[in-house]
């Protein structure tokens, strides 16, 4: 699984579990990855 797919999966689970801190971190990491 690619990094972005891994992050999307992590983001979805965090969203489902109302884990807002992780959602923010995942979102930022996704933006950083896309920026690269």
């Amino acid at each position, binding site marked *: *699984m*690619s990094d972005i*797919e*891994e992050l*999307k*999966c*992590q983001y*979805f*689970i*965090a969203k*489902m*579990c*109302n*884990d807002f801190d*992780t959602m923010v*971190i995942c979102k930022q990491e996704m933006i950083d990855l896309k920026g690269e």
Partner: protein
Amino acid sequence: MKLIYATRNYDVITDEELLEECRENMRVNDYSAKEINNVMIGSDRFYQFVYDYYEDWIDCEKANLNVLLDENIIAIASVGLWNGRVRGYKELSNKLSDIFSCFLSCEESMFYAEKGNVSGKGIHHDGSNCITYRKWREKASYEMREKTLDAIRGQSNKAESLIKRYTQSIYPDVAKVYGW
């Protein structure tokens, strides 16, 4: 948000409200006015009342949710460990009250329903755990369930579609108990 249970440090009930409850409880049990007025926030009697209050509350909710579902429950979690956050799952029985078994290592825990799902939060010395409880759909075969669990573990990029396809919310089952 609809609350099912929260431990004391979530401050769902203020100390003032607990003190009032404590005094009311003493009134009902024929304590003298002097004894009732002597109870203050921080006194031994107050702390004993608070301890009993939360014990009774969780026991009561365990009894309320002593309901068997048609399928087993799966707890999907975002877990805070000392070395970072990971996602995971725990397979539970089909008894609704089993949802309370997921935070045994947590000092504080809270169970609630929000956005059509039943969820829980817990705080422990390394961080916090966030869980959403779902149940398997009847049509989900053994292979489909294994595939879904693999996806949660991070071995597939299809976690979202698999969870939606093969699991469903337990909110309707809990709502039936509480009349939401």
